[in-house]
């Protein structure tokens, strides 16, 4: 049994990962809510967010605006905007037109679109095959609290992540667009009859979801100090798993699921011998068990089937 401090430390690290996973998972769950589709290129959109941020940072650096906080804020804004628009384009091209056909079609179309995004970054980003170093812009240093090393940059990542989540919560619960999103999620036809513009609502949902993925991508770059064009594959699968554990369609479920997945990964890395290699096995195995015993997720509603 590893000492308690190590476990606490890993749980804290898991919280960090969990915030990123949660941000990706919220996208999955939002898309599922409005269109009943799984948008499998979302993982690659997350990767694109990281690269968009990196390019903006590089551009700002070249232009001489290198001041940490300002550059970072600009990078976040630009990346959210770019990635959000790409997300909307992805939806227009290959999610919406296929939404009425079988889920298999959307699945393959979005998986292929993910491949296209991934390969485009690989080919068109300069030396795209190599992992890219991500500038360390968050305050360095830290302190120790009860045996757990807390770094300032970790706190900053948590803060940014929670701000993003609160922002989404406010958008969904306090704005007109949020009300439209909730209405469409409940019943698209009835919502349209009440004067909700379906196309605009779906566009807005994909913008929000993809923007969150961009935030997650930037946070991931800041946390690991590097980004790589294949990070979207695992990012996407984990995000989807997190959304499924939480219950597809439920935003809070996705957040809980993301945090849970992150904690599972890190604590299993600490508890199991050679755990860092097998941590994903444990995490995915738990996801499988979860779906067996509680297929609608933690916060998902039980769906009653009618003929």
């Amino acid at each position, binding site marked *: 049994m590893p000492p308690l401090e190590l476990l606490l430390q890993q749980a804290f690290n898991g919280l960090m990962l969990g915030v990123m996973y949660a941000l990706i998972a919220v996208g999955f769950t939002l898309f*599922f809510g409005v269109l009943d589709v*799984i948008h499998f290129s979302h993982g690659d959109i997350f990767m694109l967010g990281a690269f968009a941020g990196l390019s903006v940072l590089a551009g700002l650096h070249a232009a001489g605006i290198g001041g940490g906080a300002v550059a970072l804020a600009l990078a976040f804004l630009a990346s959210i905007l770019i990635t959000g628009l790409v997300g909307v384009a992805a939806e227009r*091209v*290959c999610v919406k*037109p*296929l939404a009425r*056909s*079988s*889920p*298999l*079609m959307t*699945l*393959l*179309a979005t*998986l*292929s*679109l*993910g*491949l*296209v995004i991934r*390969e*485009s970054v*690989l*080919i068109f980003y300069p030396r795209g095959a190599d992992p890219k170093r991500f500038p360390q812009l968050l305050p360095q240093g830290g302190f120790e609290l009860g045996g757990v090393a807390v770094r300032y940059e970790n706190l900053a990542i948590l803060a940014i992540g929670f701000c993003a989540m609160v922002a989404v919560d406010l958008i969904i619960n306090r704005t007109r667009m949020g009300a439209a999103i909730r209405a469409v999620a409940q019943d698209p036809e009835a919502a349209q009859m009440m004067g909700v513009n379906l196309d605009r609502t779906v566009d807005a949902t994909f913008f929000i979801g993809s923007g969150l993925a961009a935030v997650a991508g930037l946070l991931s770059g800041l946390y690991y100090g590097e980004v790589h064009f294949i990070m979207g*594959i*695992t990012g996407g*699968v984990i995000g*989807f*798993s997190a959304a*499924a554990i939480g219950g*597809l369609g439920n935003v809070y479920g996705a957040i809980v699921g993301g945090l849970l997945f992150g904690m599972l990964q890190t604590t299993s890395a600490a508890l199991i011998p*050679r755990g860092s*290699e*097998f941590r*994903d*096995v444990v995490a*995915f*195995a738990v*996801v*499988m068990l979860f*779906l*067996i015993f509680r*297929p609608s997720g933690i916060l998902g509603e039980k769906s009653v*089937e009618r*003929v």
Partner: protein
Amino acid sequence: MLLVLLTESALFVLIAAAVLAERPVALAATGAAILAGLAATRFVTPLRTALGRAFERHHATALVGGAAGALALPLALSASPYWTFVATLALLYVTIGQGLNFQIGTAGVLNLAGAAFAGLGGYTVGLLTVSAGWPSWLAVLVGPLVAVTVGAVLFVPILKTRGHYLALVTIAFVFIFNILMNNLEFTGGPQGIKNIPTLQLAGYPFTTKPTVFGIGLPAHANFYYAALLMAALTTWIIRRLYDSWLGLALNTLRDDEIAAKCCGISITRGKLVAFSIGNFFIGLGGAFYAVMVGFVSPPDFDFGYSLVMLSVIIIGGVDSIPGVILGACLLVPLPERFRFLHEYRLLLYGVVIVVMLLYRPQGLWPAKVRRYR
């Protein structure tokens, strides 16, 4: 009848030319000929109806002609061991595709772990032959059974959940499989298992170069004929299953679970049967792959290959048995042919599939509606 045979010979010549053309002029001429042929059959209505009627009436002749073409292909490709290998690979994908199509197309069991089940077959062959010293042919027969068993044990509880969740669980399974193969000791880690002995049937090792009608063939031709036999048998078995009560029951299950239940079809049992039959053929393809190339390693069975398998059945036509054959014979060799585009290959592959799904979602050779007399 003459028309059928003529069309098939023309097709054979075009395929051989498309594969073998090296110089730009020859390649361009072949490409133009193929496009002209496609355009003629598509837009010249009398030709189109005549061909359609001829193929419908002389069904048996068409099949025999197709078989003769498939048997003769290695002779045309005898100068190129590489293309014989690619053709064999396409046949493996036919086998795997038929299995996967039985799961996804016929029964609606969304399996994205095709690569993992093929990997289970392949790794079983590797372990049994290299570590336990079994003969290759026996290992190739046992490999698929392992895939079936693992699939049945792990997935019984999950088969009840449907659609998206099954997709997720199978994706997770591919990842688990890959991580395990990469990190376990007995599977050789990232190196995989090397030196898998080649097939040997009745004292005839598959590495000897056969000679047919005085034409020396590359050693891969042995595997080609074995894979052809395997693909043909698989297609025949799947065809029989599809036409039987089981195929009909599974179709019902796919279209409407509640209605199927009302008709007395057990959902779990139906899905499990379809899943196991499919996994058998997927595992068989993987096992054959292992003895053909002589080694297995984790990257041979990663998630990307699940995608290729899925693309094969969707491009061909979901639930369409001839569609799978067409899909495999297009999707496997085409990227090889376009190797000169090397870095843009995968990008174009993705674009082609998206465009295909948007404009022809039923596939190139859509499944026919079942007919009963």
